[in-house]
């Protein structure tokens, strides 16, 4: 009998310690799970903003097809602009319009940069007055703060006289949220600590008249 005296408290304390250990473990898993869940939700939002960006780029190519082809031609250095054949010897002086030549695919694609894609961007803020300007691109009202930008637009096949053209669009989009500071979807911006967003690359075949 004496041997068992004083055992209740240690047993209870051991039991509580064991339960605490389990609870702390579950809390740690729960925290990781919650963070992963938030990042996943922002990832999904970014993907659909980027898909919207691709639609905007394709629409511009479709609505001003001649200017799109001109911009491709200008990049390529030779071809047809305004139905006249041209061969540009010195491309360097036009780089402020077109940007740098794409060294990765110098022959396979006609890359459109600079003026044609400069305004293909969007900033969404709750309560914003919707507007559209050459400098800022699209400003819209929405349920969360987010943005997209077209970083690359290429014509992969050029079929003048044939109706379909294959266009590659690369867009970046993100939700701007304090919840994911340091929790990167596509890397962290060192300055702001915000995630760099989701990169989306799509290839579409569309009809350019």
């Amino acid at each position, binding site marked *: 009998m004496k041997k068992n005296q*004083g055992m209740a408290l240690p*047993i209870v304390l051991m039991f509580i310690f064991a339960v605490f250990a389990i609870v702390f473990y579950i809390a740690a898993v729960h925290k990781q799970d919650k963070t992963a869940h938030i990042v996943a939700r922002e990832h999904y939002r970014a993907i*659909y903003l980027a898909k*919207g960006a691709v639609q905007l780029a394709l629409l511009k190519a*479709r609505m*001003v097809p001649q200017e799109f082809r*001109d911009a491709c031609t200008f990049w390529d250095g030779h071809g047809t602009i305004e139905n006249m054949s041209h061969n540009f010897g010195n491309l360097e002086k036009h780089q402020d319009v077109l940007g740098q030549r794409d060294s990765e695919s110098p022959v396979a694609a006609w890359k459109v940069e*600079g003026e044609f894609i*400069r305004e293909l961007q969007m900033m969404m803020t709750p309560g914003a007055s919707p507007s559209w300007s050459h400098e800022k691109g699209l400003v819209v009202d*929405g349920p969360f703060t987010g943005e997209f930008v077209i970083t690359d637009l290429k014509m992969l096949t050029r079929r003048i006289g044939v109706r379909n053209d294959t266009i590659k669009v690369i867009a970046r989009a993100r939700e701007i949220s304090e919840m994911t500071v340091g929790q990167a979807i596509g890397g962290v911006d060192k300055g702001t600590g915000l995630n760099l967003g989701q990169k989306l690359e799509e290839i579409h075949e569309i009809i350019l008249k």
Partner: protein
Amino acid sequence: MMGNKAVTLVEILLAVTILALALVPMAGGLLSYFKRVNTIEGSLDYTHRAQNLLNDLLNEVSYKETQRVMTENGCSGENVGALSDHGKAVVKNLTTIKTREGKLLCPPDTGLNADQTTNTEKGKWLVSDKGTYFKMNGVSYYFTLTITNIPLQFHWKQYVLDVHRKEVVGWLDACTRSNVPGKPDVKTTDSGGVKRDMFQQLTLDIRWQEYGRNLSYSFVTFKANLDDANDTHDNSTDSDS
């Protein structure tokens, strides 16, 4: 012997008190965790359903159909084609939207008693005044779609050529839908000759109630008229309607 018994009683009372005090927050934490685990299936399902809906709206549903849905939900479209047009429609019944192939975007779960069911059939939907919804583990997830017209004004470089030297010597800014004489205007009619805005903001809101809390999530994307924007008026190519 009596002294030892008294110590044991105090010890037991102390132990029970500590146990009671410690178990309350621990039980709360555990309960919260298991509640969350219980709803993971529902959250995965609403995320997947939302993604499927948006993918279909972007790829399988024609632009004319989304405009028809806007009109059906009270957006008059009086200013369509004007830069001031920010017409908006809140669509609560998604079961009327059709794909290009004539399939329903959200097929309704017919013959179901919504009050009694715990889960709706996979991929099937119900409609109420709060929106189009499905049930998972007894929780109803309500979807509403807001479609907003976004008028655009594109810019580009219009090249100035030196024909003799075959060089581009400069460029001009140009824009669409401009009132400035001499600057090009991009057509805002479809192949049927109907005036339309060419870009829409699609906002998909999902709302549900979980353990007394009102929760929500939303996606935003944009849909362009890639079907027939800027096409010449030609009724023979008008096959989407």
